[in-house]
């Protein structure tokens, strides 16, 4: 499961054939708006979210926003 660390990954954008880069990305849920560093395609801006992130930190933030 070492496909994604915070800054690098072997995954690349299939359409643009570009390596992903860590950049500030806007995310939002309910009343919450944040800017976080995420991996994205520098060309088409498609953002990569791995399983660990989705079921880890993101889920945690979702739950805490829901209970606010």
């Amino acid at each position, binding site marked *: 499961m070492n*496909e994604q660390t915070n800054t690098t990954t*072997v*995954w*690349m*954008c*299939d*359409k643009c054939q570009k390596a*992903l880069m860590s950049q500030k*990305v*806007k*995310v*939002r*849920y*309910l009343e919450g708006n944040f800017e976080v560093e*995420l991996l*994205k395609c520098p060309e*088409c*801006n*498609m*953002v*990569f*979210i791995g*399983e660990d992130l*989705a*079921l880890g930190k*993101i*889920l945690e*933030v*979702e*739950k*805490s926003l*829901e*209970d*606010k």
Partner: protein
Amino acid sequence: MDLDKLLDISNQCIHSEPPTCVASCPVHMDVIAFVSEIEKGDFAKAYKVMENKIPFSRLIGKICDHPCERVCVRENCGGSIRISELEKSVIDLGYMPPKKPLLMPKTKGTVAVIGGGLSGCVTAVELDKKGYKVTIYEKTDRLGGSLWAHEGLEASLIEEELSTIEKKGISVVYTTEVTEQTLQTYLQQYDALYLGTSEWSKHYTIHPQTLQVDDSALFVGGKLQTQNPSVIFSASSGKRAAVSIDRYITKTSMSASREREGVFETKLEFKTDNVTPVESVEKTSAYYAENEAIQEAKRCLKCQCTECIKACVHMQRFNITPDSYIRSINHNERIVLGTRSANLMINSCTECGLCKEVCPIGIGMKEIIHATRQSMVERKKMPLSAHDFALKDMQFSNSDAFSLIRKQPSKEASKNLFYYPVIAFSAYARGLYKGSSKTGYLFYPGCQLSSTHTEYIGDIYKHLVGAIKNKDADNDVGLYLGCCGAPADWAGRLDLMPESIEKIHKTWQEMDEPTFILACSSCAATFEKYLPMIKTISLWEVFDTYGLPEVDIKKGKRELCIHDACATRHNSKLHQSVRHIVKTLGYTIQELEYSKEKAKCCGYGGLVSNANPEQAEDFVKDRIEESEHDVLVYCAMCKDALVKGSKRAYHLLDIIYGNEVNQDEPQKMPTLSERQNNRKRLKYKLLKEIWNEEESDMSPSYNFTLHLCDEIVALMEKRFILLSDVEKVVEHSLTHKERFFNPQTSDYLARLRVQNVTFWVKYEEQGSDITVKDVYSHRMEVVED
């Protein structure tokens, strides 16, 4: 939500009511904590518990007349707990000399205590603790009064204990007798006066609660007030007088919150029906030895009302009782900024109503939690993820994919059936032949039975037409597929109820008010609550009245335990019908401890399996541990939950249609995706077979074939991801090439936002074969720009 009214209910909960021993102890020694420490072998802590409530506990503990033992509920189960013997033993084994007292400034006022007996000493010490300058006037040359007459107390011990009084800074004036004549002088000299002598020349009228004489600064306690020789009553009156004197001097209410001072009646009625008698432990020396005391302490029943907790795994998981539960709800509701930490708990109740059934005073959390959920929804504070999947599934059931309303096929449309031998052998054909075009009954199987027991629905419908028309030619039987709205009700979504309810009501009116035949217990509860004008009958009662489907039944010989559906707990007619059918089919019934009105929920109720799957698993586990036998249910969701918990369970329809076979084969319930598909398929099939209507298949078709191994299917179930979601993600990624590629594994990873959820699918692509390797989702929206 009326939170104050709610808190009133919380105050009625008797979980925190003290046991009779504590209520009958004038100083309320915490007997449960006391024996619990002894049980643990911690005699020093047990002594602390004593010391906390009993003044001069080293003395009183040895001579207390223990009114607690006379009311101990253990009395008829081997004898009362010997609390007084335990106290003696604890003094012997756990006494620790007190730390040197901190001398605090005594500035709150001055009090004279007349009489240095036990009650006077107690009052003096209590007032000293509160910050008063106290002077004791004693007519003899020593404190202690009648304590010296007790055989069980050594003189050295009395001296040692009472010597602490002067060490605290309390003044003692010895050999000074105060009389009625000189009393006034003392009253003028001090802020208040406590009279604790054993005799007095004048009879005063003493207020029973405050021990005050009229509105004066004179307070009377001890034997003069208690009128009995009990040391513990004497000590109690000393303590209470100290409270009154403090309130008198500080000019606070003399009577507020004092209802339970001294001996009071507890609301707790602890039942000993299931208690095994155990004889008291006999001491082998003057006091209980350590081990003897531990054994005796273990006999204590620790009386507390835990009826609801015993019956409910939800309360067990959150380690909570109605009183504290309501306080948590109150806090959760009032919070303005901060985390609503009770949300998960509130969404983990199945709203089954069992707590109310077992509660000695009838407190039920179902209605309270339901109102709380509605309030959370109204205030937009209901966690979205808790019920989102179930509500979308409800939307699906009420969409054209499943929803269907049809009258019984007309005579005209069915005429191709009316020839020999069909008409002779098919009750269904004869039923159609008698068609009156007046819909007297409307069969409403419900969404979940249709999802999981799809194959039975058409047969049941045909049977109903045949059986009902045979006895009641005037009334046709129609069919209505849809969802009653139970998920919205559970989720507190009043705003979504009309979607189901109004449609049902309108149909009922348009069809000239037919009786609904319900096969689902949750539908029955929803109809009762939201559509009370509609007459309903359970499918099981119809079967019992009009006859069972004629199938080749091999009579069952086994014993089955019946798991009643919690939503039908008060429907005794239904319970009877179900049991009658089971017996008719040749089975014997094992009644579970929690059955009929005390039925336990399978964990589906209240959408708990959506909001807190682990809690739902607790319910299943708790239920299946009740019996070794296979389970018989009559609610589709109960079967689903129990089978998932690896218990062999049969729906009543399984035994009616002779499908309680292949007992070695593992049982399997349809997945969430299959359930939706089954509903779609059922509508399609019924329209075609019964109404001869052909509907075009609305399912989208894709140019790829998905391959999902069992692990992935299980993962999708756990994560509430539907096959249709996975298909949409893959289709989108193939069409738009929006996907990531891993050059090391050659896997693709694609995402698609469907309504309010982003689904991710990792897959391998080989031509048109797509093998799914992982699925997950999140609700957080990523802005890609």
